[in-house]
């Protein structure tokens, strides 16, 4: 006959396995690895949803498409505001070291709500209307069509970059977030953008 000692080991093992099985739903809620990183992702992709063929040589009245993506890892559903701005090489840019936004006015705003651990990609279609100055000394803009909306760019101009031999313009997107405590949007210290060369006829 099997000894009671052998039975005891079997008893403890079976009881332990059963207890773990039955308690697993409770354990799965208690033994959760805590989240420590809370952040927002911001990215820009080309018209094929890839980080490859971004537009660079921008012709007059030619349409280009990019996608702007936002990934929310803040632990709560977030209310974002995207400010679209345009600048030349000498104008104010967002600074990732000082964590400041550009002082330029936004040309276009769009609000986005993203669930926690959710992502959202927004399409941006744009075309520039511009003219060259005398002897190709600079580029004078008249308007930017962004997602079908005509935006006035009459105060914007680009000078010839003799070093790079281009007319460089920077279209960039700043991310702002709604702060419920302050009841206002705050710069979320994230921006992405694309440099364009306005020398294509």
């Amino acid at each position, binding site marked *: 006959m099997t000894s009671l000692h052998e039975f005891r080991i079997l*008893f403890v093992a079976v009881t332990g396995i059963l207890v773990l099985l039955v308690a697993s*739903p*409770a354990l799965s809620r208690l033994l959760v690895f805590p989240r420590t990183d809370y952040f927002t992702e911001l990215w820009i992709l080309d018209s094929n949803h890839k980080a490859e063929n971004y537009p660079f040589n921008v012709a007059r009245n030619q349409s280009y498409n990019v996608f702007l993506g936002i990934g929310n890892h803040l632990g709560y559903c977030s*209310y974002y505001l995207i400010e679209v701005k345009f600048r030349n090489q000498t104008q104010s840019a967002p600074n990732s070291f000082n964590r400041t936004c550009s002082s330029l006015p936004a040309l276009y705003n769009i609000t986005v709500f993203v669930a926690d651990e959710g992502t959202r990609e927004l399409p941006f279609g744009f075309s520039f209307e511009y003219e060259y100055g005398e002897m190709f000394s600079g580029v004078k803009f008249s308007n930017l069509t962004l997602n079908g909306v005509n935006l006035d760019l009459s105060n914007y101009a680009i000078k010839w970059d003799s070093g790079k031999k281009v007319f460089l313009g920077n279209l960039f997107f700043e991310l702002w977030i709604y702060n419920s405590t302050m009841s206002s949007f705050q710069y979320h210290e994230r921006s992405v953008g694309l440099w364009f060369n306005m020398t294509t006829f």
Partner: protein
Amino acid sequence: MMSVLKFSFVLLVFLGLASQFPVSVVLAQASEAEAASALVTSEDSVISAYQALSNASEAGANVSSLLVRLNEAGWFLSRAQIAFKSGDFDSALEYAAQCQEKLNGFAADADALKENAIYEHYMDFLVNVAGSIVGAVSIVCVSLISWFFLKRKYARAGISA
């Protein structure tokens, strides 16, 4: 006589134009004020809806359908703001109205989802947490009782441990 008639005609035309001008300014201002008011109302509605959605989300509700609605409302609000900035007050008013329309009954829907989520969370806790803990404790108790009876049975049979 002719010059007096000419002068009177010019004066009449001038007065007519002058009387039209303030009216058009007043009409434009009224439209701008109306659009501005609609814009503020829409902005407030979007924020209220966002807060209702956040509360439902915190309670563990699946807010994906509400999020779609809120994003649509946000898109209309953005368009209204752009139209207002460019002086197109009619479009601003129209977009603001469409934004409001998207948010009709939003808070009630969010609250319903929140209540449902709270109930589901309670049931989930009852079944999965409390239930499994009670189950685990019951297994330990049954094992101990079984062990006690088994030990007694062995003792009666005269088999040593």
